[in-house]
């Protein structure tokens, strides 16, 4: 237990570009296991998808905290747990120091308006039978908020804020393009003047040229209204652009967390390295294959039903040793890290960005490339 507490303390650093003091949102040991039923003769719980498995993080007022990872790492579940769309199996969620982990509907009321969510799919997250005005006004109505000047006025203001024509108040979602719909989603989230927005892949369903529009909008909202973001995305470049602090998740756990510069320029965890090296860049270096690490992991992410023992990344890690299988590395500030840069690894990489030699773990690639060099 003492171990966990130390980890916890260390995981809640005071980031440089955020105000000191009590974090807006604090998550301790958050866990979500989805039970799997089966067996004979009577169906019973035979296992669990360990979607989120003991997660600690803190988001401070006005900051953007990025959560990156590949599919199945639990980042979206984390978002839904924090917004209480799903019930956590274990752990605590503190909002402004108040425990809302298992708060009921009534207790949640005041908090609900302060934590809002933006969803990935702008097509399915808006009720097609409601007008834009109704959709954006919905949260106000549910929470019984009557802004001065009336709801409609407020809604028109919001439409303007997110860059939509206030005249379109009475239109239906299908009359808007994907990017515009996502703007509607943002307007709805803003309607209650939240303190924290959990944005789950807010731009990944959009066309490239539209993504930037929405990212800029979110940036503007964040700056002008001082709203904190929990920004969940798989696109490392977008997260880097938007978030001051970033956590990298792998199989339900945070493997590395730190400020933007630490994560992107001085990553310590091999997985962070692998992830960064895999991002294709539209640059000349990319064309010529220079200047960046080349790490090619083997296979896919293991199943969260039976995650590997010890360090969960060890099955795909080139540095893995026996210790990795037996001992789970704690998420701590290891030697050479800056304040608040925590890494969960027994054998971290050097804080230099670039590895000279390529790491090719994929057997097919390895054999193909050997045969080519033999030619």
């Amino acid at each position, binding site marked *: 237990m003492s171990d966990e507490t130390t980890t916890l303390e260390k995981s809640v650093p005071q980031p440089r570009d955020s105000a000191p003091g009590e974090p807006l949102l604090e998550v301790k040991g958050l866990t979500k296991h989805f039970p799997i039923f089966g067996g004979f003769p009577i169906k019973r719980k035979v296992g669990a998808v360990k979607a989120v498995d003991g997660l600690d993080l803190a988001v401070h007022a006005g900051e953007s905290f990025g959560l990156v990872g*590949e*599919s199945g790492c639990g980042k979206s579940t984390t978002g839904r747990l924090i917004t209480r769309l799903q019930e956590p199996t274990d752990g605590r969620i503190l909002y402004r120091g108040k425990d809302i982990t298992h708060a009921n509907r009534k207790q949640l009321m005041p908090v609900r308006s302060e934590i809002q969510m933006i969803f990935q799919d702008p097509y399915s997250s808006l009720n097609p039978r409601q007008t834009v005005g109704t959709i954006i006004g919905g949260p106000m109505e549910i929470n019984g908020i009557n802004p001065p000047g009336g709801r409609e006025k407020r809604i028109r203001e919001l439409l303007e804020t997110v860059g939509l024509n206030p005249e379109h108040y009475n239109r239906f979602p299908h009359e808007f*393009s*994907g*990017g*515009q719909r996502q703007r509607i989603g943002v307007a709805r989230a803003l309607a209650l003047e939240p303190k924290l927005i959990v944005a789950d892949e807010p731009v990944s369903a959009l*066309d*490239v*040229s*539209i*993504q*930037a*529009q929405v*990212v*800029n909008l979110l*940036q503007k909202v964040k700056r002008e209204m001082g709203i904190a973001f929990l920004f969940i995305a*798989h696109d*490392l*470049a*977008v997260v*880097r*652009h938007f978030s001051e602090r970033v956590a990298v998740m792998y199989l339900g756990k945070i493997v590395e967390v730190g400020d*933007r510069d630490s994560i*992107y320029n001085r990553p310590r965890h091999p997985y962070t390295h*692998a*992830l*960064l*090296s*895999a*991002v*294709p*860049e*539209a*640059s*000349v270096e*990319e*064309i010529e294959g220079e200047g960046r690490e080349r*790490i*090619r*992991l*083997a*296979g*896919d*992410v293991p199943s969260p039903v039976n995650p590997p023992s010890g360090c969960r990344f060890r099955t795909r890690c080139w540095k893995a040793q026996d210790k990795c299988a037996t001992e789970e590395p704690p998420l701590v500030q290891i030697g050479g890290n800056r304040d608040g840069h925590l890494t969960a690894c027994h054998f971290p990489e050097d804080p230099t960005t670039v590895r000279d030699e390529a790491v090719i773990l*994929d*057997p*097919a*690639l390895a054999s*193909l*490339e050997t*045969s*080519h060099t033999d030619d």
Partner: protein
Amino acid sequence: MTTLTQTEGTPAPTGADPFLSVRDLYVRFSTEDGIVKAVDGLSFDLERGKTLGIVGESGSGKSVTNLSVLGLHNPQSTEIRGEIVLDGQELTGAPEKTLEGLRGNKMAMIFQDPLTALSPYYTVGRQIAEPFIKHTGVSRREGRLRAIEMLTKVGIPQPKLRVDDYPHQFSGGMRQRAMIAMALICNPSLLIADEPTTALDVTVQAQILDLLKDLQQEFGSAIIFITHDLGVIANMADDILVMYGGRAIERGSVKEILTTPQHPYTWGLLSSMPRLSSDIDVPLHPIPGTPPSLLNPPSGCPFHPRCAFTDKVDGNRCSGERPALPAGRSAACHLTAEQKQSIFIESIQPRLG
């Protein structure tokens, strides 16, 4: 090249006849809402062993183009004009039997979502072996052996066992490997990859992209690589064709397109995407507006409603006159070469960091 109906010019002539040559391709299909002008006068060439990247957003016509190369469009609702010549053989209007003989054999395709693109009802091995059996006439047993060989090649562990698995027993990355095995089993000269890594995680994407490149080296196939991701294309392609609104609007080598793009749309694409190396404090530069509807494409230059530089062009040329895409390294834009260069150097390049 002034009339509206005139097509984009022919690409720069190369030494030999191109392996694949598409000329003045028009694809239209009728839907309940009207006629969709999916591809509107497209021409390009591809040489053996080379990779052509086609970049575009949704609705740019990039996928339709390639389905029509293989003749996979619905013949009842689709109208195709133009020439598609593969290795000297005319494909438009070719009888279905001929196309059947070519598909999966000389030309193969990899689709975006390997989960839906593989039949859930048959084993991976059977699906991989099927085109081989059909096109070479070997026995099932031989087909199976070949499938195992291909699975080994694309890096499926324990291929002798996994050959009898069903697609849903494979992980996403493995399924895409199986798709690649299936596409390459007959050693096709032309491989069309339609967003083959979009559905995959980034680490898996890196494996698949490298795999494709390595296999291309081994098989010597020409590849048409379709994607919306400029990063991926930078990694994969030799040449790039940028498509917008059913037309090609810029053509060039990878390096040319990424370092000295000429079309305002390409500028927009490049400056709107964040990069791992770009400045963080400056906002992104999105392209205003939304991609055009192909039911009712804009007149003149399809990009003009979203273009920030129409005022630099005299009169209403942008909205009234369709700019041609000249042969070779070029962009379909009414801006003069000087204008393009100065705008790029003054306002675009700084944004790209």
